[in-house]
């Protein structure tokens, strides 16, 4: 049984200029102890999709899905109280802006301890010991002293370590990391990623890693989901994705990758992700796609079979190298 199972997830925002579909028809399943990468340019709905799973979207969002289940329990129909026993304890999440994600008014010790207090029956002393242990685990120097530090006294990298310590404090089965390194210095980025992979191996949790960076995907992920303008355009094992991308968008991401990549950012593909109001008819990628035809501009493409990465395209690429 997959840890997390999502079928046909759609998120619609109620905005001043009408409804806006930020995520449409996303399917995914995450198995225990695997790393699932979710890639795509800015605005492709990666964060919104995962926030929907966590139930963290604002009231202006309408979330629908055919199935949204954690370890077989249906999260769509359960009470919010039951949901809160999963959120935080079984599924934890860390965010892109670590400094802003910690509450400036409370100490590190309070914020970690609160998590333990909510989800475990540890005593005060045990919570303290566990907090020190967690900070050690995430490689925080002087863990005992850091417990009484306030967030503004920490650097970005240290804040992210605290966020990670807090997230893994109750041994979650799944950790969702939303671009955990984007806001950090390049040298710190690698350290944090290594830490996440090491923790995943040690604790046996699964990792859903949202990223811009195809290099990170190649190094860490087991499977990859490629999202574009709210649609899931391809889903593959990492090896297959790099050797035989089936969707033209994936192909474009990879083609621009190795030598020509600028910094750690996604390479530039001409054009931008369409936002609210300028979604094209037919295939959402057609204005930027080199293979686009009349058909692409008029007819919404179907999902190709699983052997072709369920590519959302009329003319999938590398069909001769379809996965077995």
């Amino acid at each position: 049984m997959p840890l997390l199972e999502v079928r046909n997830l759609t998120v619609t925002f109620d905005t001043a200029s009408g409804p806006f579909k930020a995520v449409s028809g996303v399917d995914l399943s995450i198995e225990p102890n695997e790393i699932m990468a979710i890639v795509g340019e800015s605005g492709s709905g990666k964060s919104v999709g995962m926030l929907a799973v966590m139930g963290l979207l604002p009231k202006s969002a309408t979330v629908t899905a055919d199935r949204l289940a954690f370890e077989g329990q249906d999260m769509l129909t359960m009470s919010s109280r039951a949901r809160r026993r999963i959120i935080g304890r079984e599924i934890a999440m860390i965010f892109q802006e670590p400094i802003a994600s910690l509450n400036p008014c409370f100490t590190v010790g309070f914020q970690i301890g609160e998590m333990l207090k909510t989800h475990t029956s540890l005593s005060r002393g045990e919570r303290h010991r566990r907090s020190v242990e967690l900070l050690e685990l995430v490689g925080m120097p002087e863990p005992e002293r850091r417990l009484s530090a306030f967030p503004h006294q920490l650097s970005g990298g240290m804040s992210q370590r605290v966020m990670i310590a807090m997230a893994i404090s109750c041994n979650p089965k799944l950790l969702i990391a939303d671009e955990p390194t984007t806001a950090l210095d390049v040298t710190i980025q690698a350290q944090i990623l290594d830490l996440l992979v090491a923790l995943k191996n040690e604790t046996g949790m699964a990792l859903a890693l949202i990223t811009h960076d195809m290099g990170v995907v190649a190094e860490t992920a087991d499977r990859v989901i490629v999202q574009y303008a709210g649609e899931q355009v391809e889903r593959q094992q990492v090896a297959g994705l790099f050797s035989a991308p089936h969707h033209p968008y994936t192909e474009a991401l990879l083609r621009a990758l190795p030598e020509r990549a600028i910094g750690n950012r996604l390479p530039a593909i001409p054009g931008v992700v369409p936002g609210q109001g300028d979604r094209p008819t037919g295939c959402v990628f057609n204005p930027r796609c080199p293979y686009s035809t009349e058909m692409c501009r008029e007819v919404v493409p179907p999902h190709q079979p699983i052997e072709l990465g369920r590519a959302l395209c009329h003319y999938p690429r590398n069909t001769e190298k379809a996965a077995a």
Partner: protein
Amino acid sequence: MLRFLATRVGLLIPTFIGVSLVAFGFIRLLPGDPILIFAGEHGITPERYHQVAMQYGFDRPIWTQYFHYLGNLLHGDFGQSIVTRRPVLREFITLFPATLELSVCAIVFAVIIGVPAGVLAAVKRGSVVDQGLMGTALVGYSMPVFWWALLLVIFFSGILHWTPVSGRMDLLYFFKPVTGFMLIDSLLSGQKGAFTSAVSHLILPTIVLGTIPLAVIARQTRSAMLEVLGEDYVRTARAKGLSPFRVVGIHALRNALIPVITTIGLQVGMMMAGAILTETIFSWPGIGKWMVDSVFRRDYPVVQGGLILIAGIIMIVNLVVDLLYGLVNPRIRHR
């Protein structure tokens, strides 16, 4: 934190000098010769006039008068009332507990209702609850104090006979003031019903004096909460699986309180002004009524000393608020 404290205390000195200058100068701009007014309809002989003027130092140049006055202030001498002949400071100390008791009740009333109302409005943003609460706050803020007081008196005292119209205590009860606070003294006196009487006398003045601060605090709390509720750390708190009560009441409110505390402090300062009106309406024997009476009697030393003392109180309140602000805001506390 120490440096923060030192600068705040250091700022008090020039402020205080400024206030004393204004109080001193302003009084001298008021029309009416105090000696003539004091002499009343009988008039005064030129010799006697000269004698009194000498006694109060009115014959000397104004700067000499000021520095003399400032020197006395530093020794704790705020002068003497022309009318009662008692030291201004002594009168102030006797009357201040009444004002303090009323102000504390009013601010507690304003905070206890204003903060939760603001939080509720923010959480239910845009709903009927939000609109109702903020509409009410606006009405409360813009209502003329005098009219509002009359409405309350007519309804609760006139029609329902629930509350007394004026004063601090029923004449039935008599006891010596110990602390000057009726709520405490009435309990200490051990007389049955005295405490209830003190409470019932406090209710309407408290509501009248607390209404504007209540409205301001509610609106400020709402806007501070709205800002804070959109912050990343509130999302983190939700992601931790905390109850909505903890997310809003601890993680969000703790941050929203930082600007709200400043607002509360400002309102405490404004209350001194509000007290003048409220005390006059309800014949509340406090500083406000004392000041108004003294102005009508042209009792210079009292008005002058009273202004300075009130300003001093407001400065102390602001200092306390600044300290509190530092205490609730870790970014200032641990710099």
